[in-house]
């Protein structure tokens, strides 16, 4: 199916929940939904358009809020669903009831940005080490890493 046809199908499926759908390049579509409508929209996308595969979930630190993008794909089209949560209340619903394979990506979001994913089946940290100090979220822009002094054996320190 061609790109304009797919654009119309996405608009029809999401109805009022979805914002504007853009098509910046062949087979790439971006749509914005509100944070509270996320689970419903994902359910509609799965039932009506057959989006069962989520490639990954990216988080972004956009100043006053966090932006979260869900990358879905089917043969012939790749749809990116964008949503925003304010930093003062960083809660987002989990999409695992609809797509069970998204669990690892949500755990990584919790680790890296400090987002809280509600109703996540498994809330343990994924990639950070066990002795990582709490409340330090590496991918936030404000977090800077201070390199400790290195001792070079047999040389000048």
């Amino acid at each position, binding site marked *: 199916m061609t790109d304009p046809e797919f654009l119309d199908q996405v608009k029809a499926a999401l109805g009022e929940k979805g914002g504007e759908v853009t098509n910046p390049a062949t087979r790439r579509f971006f749509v914005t939904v509100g944070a509270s409508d996320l689970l419903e929209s994902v359910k509609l996308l799965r039932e009506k358009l057959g989006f*069962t595969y989520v490639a990954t979930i990216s988080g972004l630190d956009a100043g006053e809020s966090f932006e979260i993008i869900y990358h879905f794909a089917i043969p012939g089209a790749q749809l990116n669903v964008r949503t925003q949560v304010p930093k003062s209340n960083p809660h987002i619903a989990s999409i695992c009831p609809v797509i069970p*394979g998204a669990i*690892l990506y949500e755990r990584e979001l919790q680790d890296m940005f400090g987002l809280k994913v509600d109703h996540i089946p498994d809330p343990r940290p994924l990639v950070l080490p066990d002795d990582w100090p709490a409340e330090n979220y590496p991918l936030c822009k404000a977090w800077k890493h201070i390199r400790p002094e290195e001792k070079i054996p047999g040389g000048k320190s």
Partner: protein
Amino acid sequence: MKFTIPIGPQHPALKEPISLRMTIEGEVIRDADIKLGYNHRGLEKLAEEKTWLQNIYLTERICGICSHSHATCYTQGVEKLMEIEPPRRGLYLRFLVAELERVHSHLLWLGVAGHEAGFDTFFMYTWRDREIVMDILEAISGNRVHYAINTLGGVRRDIDDLQKKKILDSLDTLRSRSEYYFKIGATEPTFVARIAGVGRLSKEDAINLCAVGPMARASDFPQDVRKDDPYGIYDEVPFEVATATTCDVLGRVVVRVKELMQCYNMIEFMLQNLPDGPIAVRAPRRAKPSEVVSRYEAPRGENIHYIKSSGGDKPERLKVRAPTLANYPATVVMLKNGFVADIPLIFAAIDPCICCAERVVTLVNGRSGEEEVVPLSRLRRLARERWKKAPLNKDAVWPL
């Protein structure tokens, strides 16, 4: 009586550190849990401090076996951001190296699968042939691994007629040797019986848990980015998507073998239809503020990069998702209700490129809490002895 075995970070089996904790009852695995983080190097934060060109070298070193996949996926995305189009000859050379990398990666994996199943001769044979491919890559790019042949706008080196002839000759040798091995593999009943029925993943599970690459294709789910979302020159080069219906380790071996034969055909096509012309165009220093999603079919599955630019000469956000991460939930499902003796085989069958997994098995006695370190070689020996006594599955057929 349930025991918990941690398969910890240092392990003789293969390459990367990853920790698995399995709860077992007798010989059957009831539950499995994967712990990551040994290989987390903080690349995404590091990428925000380097320029667009320096990041090519950084993304190459995400993985050693599929280094060209990450570099190409990133370069493709940035070229779209900068709105430059590499010339046709540059694209053909880029994907020639990509298919050569797929050949080398599948040969590596076949050797590893043979080694885990106890077929060490197969391991030595396939790795010896892999050296032919490494020689070709070294002649083209100068290094055996991490061939930094991509640049923003094309490729860095060209090939001449002598190299072309050498590649075509080596291809003939590789093809005839590969066919010989697959005949051996197909007619060796112990090998086929050892890997049939191990590590089942049904089609429904593969779809629900978002499995990618040969794992999904072996469960009869034909997902291949080169066909679903063609990038580069894949809409001109003819090939077929390889699938298998058996949903187990035998299916995965068959899928990779079929892909290997397809790769040889593709490389021949690309060499014979190589267009003339320049190999690269100039790239600007800054990219316009925009975002792009780039997908690529690495030997292990789908590789996806999300790049966002805010108008400077450094990226604002680079998000990388390597294919093996997507296969983890499916691995947990495969390990459940499997046997302890099959752990090395199942884990090798997902083609782990976790970039760091050495696994050591520590048996924790549930009752007394004592620990005993069991090397994986002992587990492997146990596995071989068990299979010697098990009856041969005469119905397992090599569906090639």
